């Protein structure tokens, strides 16, 4: 199968929304890296810089009733899904006002309001959850879908194969969204898979599977809409291989010994943000002033998020042992 061609530009408002969402993630995470260096954020920090088109494109196809299961590199998904920059930043600061009350940190963003089920930091571990969420929807006759993001590294895990099989066997509305950024931490795809064609692998589970240019937000959105449409109509699961690249290191501890700087530079030429901005300018849909205004608004949002996180409160240590078991029965 070949990559799909770039779709035509959408209406101006929607194109601007896509651009803004990607830029928000980029600027937010650049600030996160800075704050990590300043020791305001600790633990593991995995940034999504370079891959923004994937989360932003997919989220356009979802409705609020749908569910999202993401990985530990999920700031972008959370922002694009509608978690506030404030609640995410406060979470990374370990503050009570964080989306997980400071119990999760960067790798475990959760939000009931947007049905955002993490923030899962065991590679492959989120896939069975997504299958179960979709099973619950199917058994209760709801036409929701579950969008499950994971990296290509997860394809080597047993949980990938078990989950793909179960979802296909039971015709469950799961979108298996494989973000193939070519490196599982430091291991290149060819060093971990005997068959590197991930679409071929997925197709053996008898579900629609196709590759998508993950550096093109319009292509991602179109593919996601098609995938959601099929799943929502009862067509069962599908698999998208979203071909992308992370521009930064795996985490803040990664000296990037395993890849050539030239490879990174080559991929940066395909940065989805300037690509879309350039296309919009070329089409006369935006001017430089629009971009500057957008940058200004995003800078203000990020600054506000940081101020909010700084001003946030620390959960009293007396509450340490809360949330091990439920406090109120939901029945």
């Amino acid at each position, binding site marked *: 199968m070949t990559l799909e061609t770039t779709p035509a530009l959408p209406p101006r408002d929607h194109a601007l929304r896509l651009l803004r969402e990607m830029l928000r993630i980029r600027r937010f995470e650049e600030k996160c890296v800075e704050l990590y260096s300043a020791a305001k954020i600790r633990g593991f920090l995995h940034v999504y810089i370079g891959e923004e088109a994937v989360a932003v494109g997919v989220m356009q196809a979802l409705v609020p009733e749908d569910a999202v299961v993401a990985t530990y590199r999920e700031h972008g998904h959370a922002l694009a899904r509608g978690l506030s920059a404030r609640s995410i930043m406060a979470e990374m600061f370990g503050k009570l006002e964080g989306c997980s009350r400071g*119990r999760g940190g960067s790798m475990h963003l959760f939000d009931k309001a947007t049905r955002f089920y993490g923030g899962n930091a065991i590679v492959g571990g989120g896939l069975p*959850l997504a299958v179960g969420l979709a099973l619950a929807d199917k058994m209760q006759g709801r036409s929701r879908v579950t969008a499950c993001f994971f990296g290509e590294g997860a394809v080597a895990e047993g949980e990938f194969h078990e989950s793909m099989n179960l979802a296909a066997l039971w015709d469950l509305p799961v979108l298996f969204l494989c973000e193939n950024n070519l490196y599982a931490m430091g291991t290149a795809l060819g060093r971990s898979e005997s068959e590197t064609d991930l679409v071929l692998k997925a197709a053996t589970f008898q579900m629609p599977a196709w590759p998508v240019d993950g550096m093109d937000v319009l292509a991602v959105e179109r593919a996601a809409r098609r995938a959601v449409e099929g799943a929502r109509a009862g067509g069962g699961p599908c698999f998208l291989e979203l071909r992308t690249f992370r521009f930064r290191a795996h985490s803040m501890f990664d000296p990037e010994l395993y890849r050539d700087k030239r490879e990174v530079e080559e991929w940066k030429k395909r940065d989805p943000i300037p690509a879309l901005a350039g296309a919009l300018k070329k089409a006369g849909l935006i001017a430089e002033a629009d971009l500057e205004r957008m940058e200004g608004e995003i800078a203000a949002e990020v600054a506000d998020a940081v101020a909010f996180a700084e001003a946030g409160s620390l959960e009293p240590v007396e509450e340490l042992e809360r949330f091990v078991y439920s406090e109120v029965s939901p029945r």
Partner: protein
Amino acid sequence: MSALGGAVPAAAAKVRVTYREAMRAAIREALERDPRVFLMGEDVGRYGGCFAVSKGLLDEFGPERIRDTPLSESAFVGAGIGAALGGMRPIVEIMTVNFSLLALDQIVNNAATILHMSGGQFNIPLVIRMTTGAGRQLAAQHSHSLEGWYAHIPGIRVLAPATLEDARGMLWTALENPDPVLIFEHGTLYAMEGELAADAGAVEIDHAAIRRSGTDVSLITYGGTLPKTLKAAEELALEGIEAEVIDLRTLRPLDADPIVQSVSRTHRAVIVDEGWKSGSLSAEITARIVESAFYELDAPVERVCSAEVPMPYAKHLEEAALPQVPRIVAAAIRVMGEHG
């Protein structure tokens, strides 16, 4: 002490049932009472359950609610977690604790943590049932008693029904619990037969129970070793030693008060646990006694556990490896002898 929780009328009619039948009745009742409940696992449907617990339920409830799964412990346990998050009340059956190791990631990294990691937003009302234990010459890979391992993990509840009443009554209460509950059913108990109140139903799942009162020594056990321990208590009575038998029932959170209170009365304790000694539940109970009743002890705590070997196949070796009535009796006599 209201060990069994539920109100059982004094003159209630009795029925003769096996542990297996009591468990099946519990599953059936749950399926009838709550449309969100379904059973999922390997061979629970057409095969009837590998221990025949779910036999017949497929015909009664259909394949949507009695769901055969592929051999994918991680996926179907994780799917149970996801379905619980999505508003269902799944009962996931893992054939045996041995295979649950293939689902450890989902149980330990997801079921036990998501409520906490999400700052209290997402609870997981899931029940996972599995068979545990040795005693059927199934050798090392089919004879584990790892419930003590699971009892190590905050965020899950661990139950060990050892009586007909608990086999019949713990499931519904576990399903009503908003958090993940693991139920360990010892393989040698399924055929246990006895009288059960015809109207037996839900029981509480928070407390240990005294199954036999005694004044001389506390025998603390749970699950598959409860019948052996009760038999040992009878033999001890013939020797003039009155043993109190405590059935833990719930391994996590551990209800330590009845243990401490009993030891404070008898001043002697023997712990009977089919798990290995090292780093075990029996070690935890010993520590609780030492922490809370050290000055009450008239003798060192004794433990009767499995020998520290992978379980052998040969009958005589397996029997030698497991806690047996004579070893329990001997341990009790030893602690009596110290200052008896």
